[in-house]
């Protein structure tokens, strides 16, 4: 009996396909009905059997429709992609069932049973998530303790900085040669001034807001932005130093890079908050945020140097030789020939470094700067809003996920683009 069932060399494979499809769809239907509508088609069977029945039925169904070529497009597609052998069919069923089973509870928690109306804890009556909590705390998560009526300053500063970043694309062709100069030197200075005068205030009739009040996601961006623009020149110098043929410079660069790459960021932050003040002159006070930015820049500079070194190494030797044969000196060769080519190759690497930097920035929470992780911890322990840690962390995770995913896709695309150009 079994032999005739599994022997598909007969010409009437059509019946097998029909039976297989029927069994497969029954098994899926059973799971869907049970997990979405709590209807159990097989409740007349003993519990343990009714649990495994869809798996068995689906497995038999997939086994029956597995055929080399049927001529029916959708079945061939199934066979080719999810049903190549018994083991694959089994895993396919497990994954389908897991997805189907997980969908209703997560959907109902996140959407159908969730609350978003109201502005206090009492509004959350459903069994699902309490998005009211996120809604009420939204401004705090974004801007920290920054005064509510001054949030426009942070927004304006960000828009300005981003706008200036795109400025380079609109330059005329005869000005394009100054692009590198603009991005490496002029842009950081302008961005610094914009952020300093707009967000800090203190002049031009703007109220002074001390850095202790900065926080939330905007602080994450400020810290990672400054660290990126400062660590880039540092990394460039270190990368050139590491490839220098002067032994003393090389040893110092290698020592620096290996030191910072060997220690965790959290100890660097501890260093910036407890050890660094000891190293400064007595009456010299430095803001905590500035210290943290310096520490992260020193740390990230080492990673940046390694990324740039990768670009320098991937240039063919001929480029160096050609530049030298034209009588160029070390600096002339690097500024006009090597770096313009190498830096283009390095952009994806820098992008990944920046991605790592953004993901590391929440750590500044451990030295008491209230960026988004810090604000979440604050909101979570607020007596009026106890018990909503889950919503807060999921919200932050979604935001970070979107940012990091977009950046990683962007850097991946860049990598592919430059791969084909060379």
């Amino acid at each position: 009996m079994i032999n005739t069932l599994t022997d598909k060399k007969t010409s009437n494979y059509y019946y097998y396909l029909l039976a297989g499809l029927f069994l497969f769809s029954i098994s899926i239907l059973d799971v869907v009905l049970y997990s979405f509508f709590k209807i159990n088609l097989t409740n007349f069977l003993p519990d343990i059997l009714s649990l495994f029945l869809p798996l068995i039925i689906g497995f038999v169904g997939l086994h029956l429709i597995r055929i080399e070529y049927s001529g029916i497009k959708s079945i061939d597609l199934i066979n080719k992609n999810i049903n190549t052998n018994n083991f694959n069919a089994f895993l396919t069923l497990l994954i389908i069932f897991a997805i189907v089973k997980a969908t209703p509870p997560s959907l109902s928690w996140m959407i159908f049973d969730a609350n978003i109306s109201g502005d206090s804890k009492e509004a959350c009556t459903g069994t699902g998530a309490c998005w009211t909590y996120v809604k009420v705390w939204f401004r705090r998560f974004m801007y920290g303790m920054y005064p509510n009526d001054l949030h426009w300053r942070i927004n304006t500063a960000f828009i300005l900085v981003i706008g200036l970043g795109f400025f380079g694309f609109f330059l005329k062709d005869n000005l394009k040669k100054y692009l590198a100069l603009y991005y490496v030197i002029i842009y950081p200075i302008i961005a610094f001034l914009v952020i300093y005068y707009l967000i800090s205030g203190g002049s031009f009739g703007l109220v002074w807001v001390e850095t202790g009040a900065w926080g939330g996601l905007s602080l994450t961006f400020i810290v990672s932005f400054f660290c990126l623009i400062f660590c880039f020149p540092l990394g460039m110098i270190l990368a050139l130093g590491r490839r220098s043929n002067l032994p003393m410079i090389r040893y110092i660069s290698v020592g620096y890079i290996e030191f910072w790459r060997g220690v965790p960021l959290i100890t660097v932050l501890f260093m910036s908050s407890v050890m660094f003040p000891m190293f400064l002159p007595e009456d010299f006070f430095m803001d905590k945020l500035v210290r943290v930015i310096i520490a992260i820049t020193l740390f990230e500079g080492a990673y940046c140097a390694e990324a740039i070194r990768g670009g320098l190494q991937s240039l063919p030797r001929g480029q160096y030789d050609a530049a030298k044969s034209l009588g160029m000196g070390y600096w002339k060769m690097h500024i006009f020939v090597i770096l313009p080519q190498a830096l283009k190759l390095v952009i994806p690497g820098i992008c990944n470094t920046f991605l790592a930097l953004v993901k590391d920035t929440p750590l500044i929470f451990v030295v008491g700067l209230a960026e988004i992780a810090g604000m979440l911890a604050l909101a979570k322990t607020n007596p009026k809003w106890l018990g909503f840690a889950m919503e807060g962390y999921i919200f932050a995770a979604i935001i970070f996920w979107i940012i990091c995913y977009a950046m990683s896709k962007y850097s991946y695309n860049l990598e592919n683009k430059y791969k084909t150009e060379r």
Partner: protein
Amino acid sequence: MNNKIKRYIPQILTLLFVIGVIGFFTLNAQVNMDNRGIDFGFGFLKQESSFDVQFSLIEYSGSHSYARAYLVGLLNTLLVSFISIIFCTILGVIIGVSRLSSNFLIRNSAAWYVEFFRNIPLLLQIFFWYYAALRALPLPEKAAPWFGVTYMTIKGYYIPSFIWNNLDIFLYSILAVIICILFISTYAKKLRETSGKQIPLFFISIGLLIVLPALSFLIGGVSLDFEIPVLKKLSQTSYTYEGGIGLPPELIALVLALSLYTSTFVAECVRAGIQGVSKGQKEAAASVGLTPNQILKLVIMPQALRIIIPPTTNQYLNLTKNSSLAAAIAYPDLVLVFAGTALMQTGKAIEIVSITMLTYLSISLAIAALMNWYNKKIEIKEK
């Protein structure tokens, strides 16, 4: 002459600059410490620490020294790194291989797993597990047993502990097995090279691994008891488990987050490694007449491992460094115990932060040195 000067001047200037910066900092530190009446020195390591650590692998209490506290922290760091490395390797290999599966669903689930866990900051993941997910677990008195003898509660995971009698004999038997297997594998290799005969090395090894330790139980007087955790009432409303081993929730959250996060990177390494072996190798091996198993074992894996191992070690190193995030959820690791509590008590900022950094640095450098040696060893020797 001119050339020589050109070479030396930049080097001397750089050196002077570095020495100048270090000198400036040292001078400031000297002045600052004099002003605050702190003296520099490592004598505090021998003093009594007088703080308690809630989870430690070695015996520790407030009457022990700061050096002992350092050791407690270091061991806790190594423990959490070790457990996470094991889990992230298992997960990473499974996900990495799944990403190359011919099955559309498996391939895409693995890809989404990687994209999902890689793009959320590790700190948030740790917080999520610790503050959100593990807080939803039942109280000790309401916990239902897992596998009959282990209890997952809000206060931690309670598992039975082993009580060995004559543990040393058992360890000797394991040692004997290892020596036997090494000896037999050398012999098998020799036999294969001289006469072409194959002996089933794998099954012999498994057999030895079962037989000798079993003999140590039967004859050597080794015996094994379990101490099962038992619910105990502390007061009217508070319960706990006595006996067995209690793994604190901090450890569980940390291991979960670290292994899920790092497994995505390990998976990418594994995928890159397997993809790095050219298809021609597989086809060539098949055309020589090797079986699929032999192809995997003798042709694909040795080449793939050469690509996989260096970046994976790097990920292990990152994991060990990332385990310092433990401080954020108060798991007593090196950073929390030493750079946190001990620093607060002694105020020896420079000494303690330097010791902590140097510890991590030496772990990193040791592994990097090992890796360089390994890379040199497995390098394909080309002309």
